[in-house]
């Protein structure tokens, strides 16, 4: 009997939860705010679904009632991707070590 592909996706999902668990515990507490902004940015990979949705219309009618939601989602996710990564970059650039000129 064949295994449903859903089971494979479920396996990836469960294993990723464990990976996430161990990786996040190793994040230093002083970087918890950048952690939140970067998780925000990466969860916007949902833009992949938004792009598929946006391009689902045909060439005469690009904005049909289904694809319009896709386009809106593209804009929302893009705000998050650019905003999330850039603000994380900005924050991380501020974390500096003590100067050794003492």
């Amino acid at each position, binding site marked *: 009997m064949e295994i449903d592909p859903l089971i494979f996706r479920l396996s990836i999902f469960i294993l990723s939860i464990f990976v996430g668990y161990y990786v996040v515990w190793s994040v230093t507490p002083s*970087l918890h705010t950048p952690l939140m902004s970067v998780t925000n940015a990466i969860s916007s*990979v949902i833009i992949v679904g*938004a792009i598929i949705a946006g391009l689902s219309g045909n060439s005469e009618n690009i904005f049909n009632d289904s694809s319009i939601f896709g386009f809106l989602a593209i804009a*929302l996710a893009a705000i998050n991707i650019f905003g999330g990564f850039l*603000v994380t970059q900005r924050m991380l650039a501020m974390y500096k070590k003590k100067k050794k000129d003492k």
Partner: protein
Amino acid sequence: MISANLSAIFYLVSGVLFILALRGLSSPETSRQGNLFGILGMIIAITVTFLSIGNFSTGFIYVLIFILIGGSIGAFIAYKIPMTAMPELVAGFHSLVGLAAVFVAISAFLNPEAFNLGTSGNIKLGSLIEMSIGAAVGAITFSGSVIAFLKLQGIMSGSPITFKGQHPLNAIILISIVVLIYLLCSTQSSNLFWILIAVSFLIGFLLIIPIGGADMPVVISMLNSYSGWAAAGIGFTLENTALIITGALVGSSGAILSYIMCKGMNRSFFNVILGGFGATDQTSSSKNKDQRPVKSGNADDAAFLMKNASSVIIVPGYGMAVAQAQHALREMVDTLKKNGIKVSYAIHPVAGRMPGHMNVLLAEANVPYDEVFELEEINNDFANADVAFVIGANDVTNPVAKTDPQSPIYGMPVLDVEKCKSVLFVKRSLSPGYAGIDNDLFYKENTLMLFADAKKMTEDITKNL
């Protein structure tokens, strides 16, 4: 156009890059590289999506235009936002992820053919369950984050909003969501789909209004987690590995942060979520307030104490963020260091309005991160320090948490500030903190209260040093 197998492999690669992005955050040195991994992962995911669709017609141009519009808004916000507003920004961003998940789910429901999910009115059962869960969680994330944003921004009062029958009402709505998903799967009715989304918006709103301002660190972490689960739900619908991996990562990350925050307050997750904390009997605690003597001083006294100290520990809190005092504080510390005084910073896990909030503000003010310590690292040092300078923190320094089992904050880990030879406490007035209880520290022999705006007081002390 590339094959489905090849694109699946690329999605896996971008999922792995996202794991590395989080991994990089284990230390500030590797964190910047980690962020680049994250960006690379995102570029791969988007490019592969374009290639796998292989349709570079007019629609493609429109997609680029929308990315550009969203991207410039995002970039503009990212450069303009002050660091003190990070909690609001993150809450706002969560709401966008939630709404994007809802939109993708709606689009998939209206046009399942485009996603290979069957035909309209006859969507594959598994996909329908996945997309309705994605839509429901996304909607909860959206409306919950909007409320969190409004509370943090001060547009909506930070005090908890409670009413009679609140918990039963929430329970009924949550059950009705499950029932709606079940009915939706058996009837495929689009009306039920819209009702499901509307009800989910409602419950997100109702879940967050009873939670008070200082519990926001938990709320933000929790919504972070929700946005991850919503993304994972959509990832299952789209059979997309990158989205499933990311959703799981973000979901567990938010859950861990909520746990850390709850532990920092010694409260159970449910206690925070059910809300209403800090709304109870403010009056009873204020009764005997004026009877106890308090020593208050001015900037001159504070400067004198610090000049004669050999080590000073700074305890920043939310008040520092409100007063934007972090730069003034750094200048004061620079002067102290010039006088050969050892200075370190002590940060409580729940200081501020989101996890790690104080660390970012101090980093912004050019405080080296190796002078900043977490509660467990520094708590023993208070006994050997000469001066503790508490700026904008309150409940997290209250010794009552260790001594009075009747106190609502009993058992919460606190900074042992009272063990210092002397304590300088910058505060506007004697009013109790968020927990609504008096801070015993105010009345200790060795405490000097400095009643003023945190920023102004710090500047005045610097002048007097």
